[in-house]
């Protein structure tokens, strides 16, 4: 066991846990932050997608020891605070398009969507069909089309 510190949703946290435990379990099982979901533990389904220093990543695929004390981890719970509002524009778009069905994949979908919009902009374009086709997040309820609609709408507001 060793101590690991990092910044979680704007606040410093410290946990005592073995180095190789993946961050997803540190978040869910140790810290009780359950927005990021387990769907595979293999870096495939993207249900756990959260942000590290503003970039989308899979906490199921990162040992806690790889997280630095200065790293800012943002889960769905902390997303609104990144824009200083009750809801991030992407969450509002998700509500507007009534995207969710069971909802299990949706925290990961929203975190991926925000990062994907930023990634497209960094590459010099607004998000479009080719970018949507790169999103790997599984939605077993099949909400993919509304996800595309919501991202298009949400991207206009941030």
């Amino acid at each position, binding site marked *: 066991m060793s101590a690991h510190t990092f910044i979680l949703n704007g606040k410093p946290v410290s946990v005592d846990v073995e180095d*190789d435990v993946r961050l997803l*379990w540190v978040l869910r*099982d140790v810290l*009780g932050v359950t*927005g990021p979901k*387990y*769907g595979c533990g293999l870096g495939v389904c993207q249900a756990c997608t959260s942000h590290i220093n503003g970039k989308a990543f899979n906490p199921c695929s990162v040992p806690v020891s790889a997280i630095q004390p200065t790293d800012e981890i943002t*889960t769905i719970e902390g997303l609104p605070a990144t824009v200083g509002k009750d809801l991030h524009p992407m969450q509002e778009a998700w*509500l507007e398009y009534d995207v969710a069905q069971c*909802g299990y994949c949706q925290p990961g979908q929203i975190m991926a969507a925000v990062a994907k919009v930023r990634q497209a902009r960094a590459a010099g374009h607004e998000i479009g069909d080719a970018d949507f086709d790169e999103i790997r997040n599984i939605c077993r309820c099949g909400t993919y089309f509304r996800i595309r609609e919501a991202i298009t709408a949400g991207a206009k507001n941030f």
Partner: protein
Amino acid sequence: MGAQGAAPQGDDESGRGVGRRRFLGYVLAGPTLVVAAQLGEEVLAPTEAQAAIPSLPEPADILDLTDLLTTAALPTSGLISIQLNTDGTASFALPRAEVGQGVTTSTAMLIAEELDIPLAQVKITLADARPELLFNQLTGASNTTVSTYTPIRVAAATARQRLLAAAAAQFGVPASTLTTAAGVVSSPSGQSATYGSLAVAAASQVTLQVGVALKAQSDFQVIGTAQNRIDALDIVTGRKQFAMDLSVPNALPTMVCRPPTVNGTPLSVQNLAAVKAMPGVTDVVTIATGVAVRAATFGQCIDAVRALQVTWAPGTEDNSSDATVQQELKAAELPLVVPPLNLLAQTVEATFTFAFASNSALEPNCAIADVRPGRAEVWAAVKAPIVAQGAIAAKLGLLPSAVTVHVVQGGGSFGRKLFFDAALEAAEISQLMGKPVKLMWHRTDEFRQGRTHPMSTSHVRATHALGQVLTFEQRHTSVATDFGHGLGEVITALVADLPVGDIGFSETIFELSQQTPYNFGVTTQLLSEVDKGFNTGSMRGIYSPNVRCAQELIVDRLAAGVGQDPYQFRRQTLKDPRAVAVLDKVAQLGDWGRTMAPGTAQGIALHPEYHSVAAMLVEIDCTPATTGRQIPDAYTGPRVTKVVCAVDAGLAVNPLGLQAQMMGGIMDGIAVALTSGMHLDNGVFQEGSWDNYFYTRQWNTPPDLQIVVMPPTSGTPGGAGELAVGAAMAAVACAYARATGTMPTSFPINHAAPLSFTPLPTTPPIPQSPVDGLPRAY
């Protein structure tokens, strides 16, 4: 009193419901107003058949599976109740499961409608297992809205009537002068009272039976309007809690080391002490299905499961592979009656094969169990909680009354959560360890040991002469579907009353759920089943998607045989005008028959079920540029570029929710037609990850999707959860046949190709989590 003096009864009561039927509601004793109604309603009217060459009505035309569940709901003594709270909210514990299909939202809408209360003031929870509800607590066969539509409205209308009476007493005016809106009772002179302020005055100290009328459809203000999911905000903020998100004291993460082949069993563990000593691990016990470990984190459970050295007894299917199962199916096929070579008619014939498919949701099987001496408490997303309660009690040696089953919202179901495999396992583990456990299946276990939709074949032979179809025979042969989840008990209890003669249980379900929507002369559809060694279940439909896909491909061939356009041919032979209407709608909106580039094509198909009908027009792109798309760890293949869907669900309570169900079903239909199947090799399903099992992903999502909800046709809601899958699968298959010039006979169409992935090892049974998350960040 003489007959002449008798007051007119029922039909001309004053106020709402003049000239309409009255229903029986209950006011229950309580500190605030509690109203109730009997769950269940009458069987819906039979569908009329209008014939070109008339086919005798098939059993499914008369009474389908959803009727059966609704009929089964009738004799129950249990009531469902709504409580009015002093804060003005109405609470209702729904005796059904919410797994993403939107029943909590549509239920809240029914209550808001009859009670005249804002939707946001209706609080829906899921009821714990209630054995007194008998068959009334089973979520399946797209049945929820059908069977609860009237009873829930009756309860809500009863509440409104009591609130009106309480306000009338308070205001000193007749109730008939009062109106209700948005949770407030108002009088013409301007007096008003909120429901919350009347909740105590409207309460009763004894239970009363009262007659109530329901709003006329023309007065609906909520039902039939598009409403967002009531849990949408909780979902997008990450606050919605699934079973694994609950914090039950001391329920530590728990996983099971599972056998290398389907249903293998543990014989011995070689390194028990070493694994018990691993970091975080608290307990290791052998259970019926494997070896369970409990640890501080799921990550440490994964480590322990991978470290366990277990000797396994063989499974139930160690010598089975795709090819051997296919042979079993072939041998079990029931004979066709009409000879293939016919001097008077031409024959169209084909046999289609459908691979095993996984019905796993994104949320894996999971449950929390806390078993103590003499009692047990379980939290899980289960659609048949009463059956689960009984089975868990039997397993633990407890009385059912000592087992509490809390129904938690589920992260998808698709048939999987009709079963309670995880709840049963969690209870067994908790009892053996003597501690609370939070059990989770690994994704790889989900594919390899979880339930599958069984492999099946469908042999169709049809004959036609002089432009008309004379016979249509279909023989569906399937690996056995497990119905041990409560639906079985419904059928067994009612089977004697059904118009299907003396046939078996699965055959009954088949007859009740399968229809041929066309007038094809002498029509027979029969099922035979083999091999009970697999863990199976339905998957957004039991037989329909495969049966429908086979049918519609043959319908296209028949159309070609009689020299007609596929759309026109369908519309001329359809039995039901509602089916014609949805077909016309998609043909018109989707510009049926437009010129398509080589390698691309349209397909059209429809599917009726559970008193609803959906039609699909799809466009597919099978050009090499598309099928050759390179995406890492993906199967790309042909792409469905456009889907136009029209759905008639009788009365859509929530059109936005109905569209969502259609959208999901379309993604499933695309998957089972083109990409997602399981390969069985010597008792091992080769797929072990979402990157092996190719459920639809964004790169195969149609970029153009239109879903039209037809105006109400029947006045009562039909089923919708499974409806779109069959129509979409069939339309995609028909489009693929047209685009490539070859009718596919094996599904999904990529199934026969060499595996496009390297299968994960079977020992250890689950892979380690990767460590490359940071370099992959974007």
